[in-house]
């Protein structure tokens, strides 16, 4: 049998036929059970989100009925309209979008340029810069929130977009990803362009960036999701209702309007919605990004 497999390694039909033969084997039953269990667990994993959605569509009195029930006696969107009138969620959406988009653009731009230079160019102090970036990956920014707040407080920039945006831009890991990516690309194109008299800037714009499209989209999606979701720094630097982002604003809803269950769940659904859309649109890039980043 094994010699037969060695003779026909390129025929794709062979393993399938073999799988069918295996149906008789005892551990096929075990395999089926495993599949059944993992399907059940996946469904279980969806329960909290489904429960939030279910509750958000109920009328408030139905959310406090005992025993708890999935049934929705009066389907209503009133919790959603209440959310928009009782909280500043519209404003938080706008703030989150502004901050996440600008941070993403600046991160992709600065990190890809630095990564390009580290991979392609020679300059004094380059090993030092690279070492600093590698060390920077280890820095946990969350542990530096107190001094960072003081920094912004002393220049009176708390509760401004400057404070929300700028500290979220430098991501050493993004530089590392871009450097690794450019290292894996052939250098000949850049060299030819350089010989023809193109500036480094032209090389980066016309050759480097277009080639790095997959790295750009992975870094962009991750930066966007991460910035949109970031809680701790925006929570500290945006104390004014008008400057809050979605996570910070929703944080106030948890304790603020404590007793309105349908409103809270509607807020959760509204907070989740943009990310669910990003996930559905960019699922492939996200998953490949996680896998690619992690395994390097």
């Amino acid at each position: 049998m094994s010699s037969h497999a060695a003779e026909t390694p390129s025929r794709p039909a062979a393993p399938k036929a073999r799988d069918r033969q295996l149906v008789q084997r005892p551990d096929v039953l075990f395999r089926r059970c495993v599949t059944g269990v993992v399907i059940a667990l996946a469904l279980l994993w969806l329960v909290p989100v489904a429960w939030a959605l279910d509750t958000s569509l109920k009328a408030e009195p139905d959310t406090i009925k005992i025993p708890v029930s999935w049934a929705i006696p009066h389907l209503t969107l009133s919790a959603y309209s209440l959310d928009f009138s009782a909280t500043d969620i519209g404003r938080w959406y706008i703030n989150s979008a502004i901050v996440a988009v600008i941070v993403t653009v600046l991160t992709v731009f600065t990190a890809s340029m630095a990564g390009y230079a580290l991979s392609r160019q020679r300059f004094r102090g380059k090993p030092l810069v690279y070492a600093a970036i590698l060390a920077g990956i280890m820095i946990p920014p969350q542990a530096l929130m107190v001094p960072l707040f003081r920094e912004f407080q002393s220049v009176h920039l708390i509760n401004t977009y400057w404070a929300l945006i700028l500290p979220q831009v430098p991501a050493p890991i993004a530089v590392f990803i871009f450097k690794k990516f450019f290292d894996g690309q052939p250098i000949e194109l850049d060299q030819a362009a350089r010989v023809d008299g193109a500036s480094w800037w032209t090389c980066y714009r016309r050759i480097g960036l277009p080639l790095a499209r997959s790295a750009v989209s992975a870094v962009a999606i991750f930066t966007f999701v991460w910035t949109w979701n970031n809680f701790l720094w925006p929570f500290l630097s945006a104390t004014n209702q008008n400057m809050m982002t979605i996570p910070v604003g929703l944080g106030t809803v948890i304790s603020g309007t404590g007793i309105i269950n349908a409103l809270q769940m509607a807020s959760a659904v509204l907070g989740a919605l943009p990310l669910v859309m990003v996930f559905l649109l960019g699922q492939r890039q996200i998953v490949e990004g996680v896998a690619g980043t992690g395994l390097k």
Partner: protein
Amino acid sequence: MSTAALPRTARPVSRPRPDRLRAGELAGAGFVAPFLVLYALFLILPLVLAVIMSLFNTSLVIPGLGTFVGLKNYGELFSDDYFWQAMWHTVLFTLVSTPFLIVLPLLFAIAVHRLSHGRWFFRLAFFLPYILPSAVIALIWTFMYEPAYGLLDGILHFFGLGAPGWLSSTTLTLYSIVIVTIWWTIGFNFVLFVAGLQDSPRDLYEAAELDGASWWAQVRRITIPMLGRTITLVAVLQVIASLKIFDQVYLITQGGGGPNFSARVALEYIYDYGFTSGRVGYGSAASLVLFVVILVISFAWLALVRRQEKGV
């Protein structure tokens, strides 16, 4: 430029041309400058500030550094039982959650990765929570854990069991947050494992199957050894992420750190003292201690990974 042009003509063509090199150097520095400026301002400067302020009694409400107090902040910190309690909660959280966050996604990935269709469904179910913001997670789970109308107690009630007090018991609160975190973040590790499994060669399994190896034997003898690197990586990322836990604890306990501070973690302690009490100097000292702990563990793991890779 003109001075550089003179020697160029005298030199052999193959030698590096100084004007080119210098222009390249300038461009290189220019390319890294925007990143480096932001890096220096928002990662290095806070670190330096933390070191300086930790030696002063800097206050949130008074401009300037305040008065120099030497190592007094550190002395107070190390003798504060609440600080050690918060550090312990962080460590306990890490110790309890990490095994689940490695073993569960690994098992899920093994179970899913050889299915011929429907893999998108598992990716959706397990990965979707991961990309939601902590505030959404906290909203959903605060209601899940609600003692009267919450789904969990509703189910327990159905089976005739009493409410355990998910968020009101001093012993249970931290573990309730562990459950939330497992649910929330499992997808990241799941995707890493699925990717790792896809890299392992198919013919290995086919050969094992032909030799009559059972499914479990294949998992034990092929899958897990092949995933060695991924498992180490997941463990490292997981431990480092767990040490920085703040969001879900703060939001679910509504800033209180749980009943009688029974779930307050290190970063929340720093927040409570550095911001709520306005003691920036003291908060900086606490920040640096956590910072060093995370750094030491990161490097220890890195060294371990290096050794493991050399050994393989």
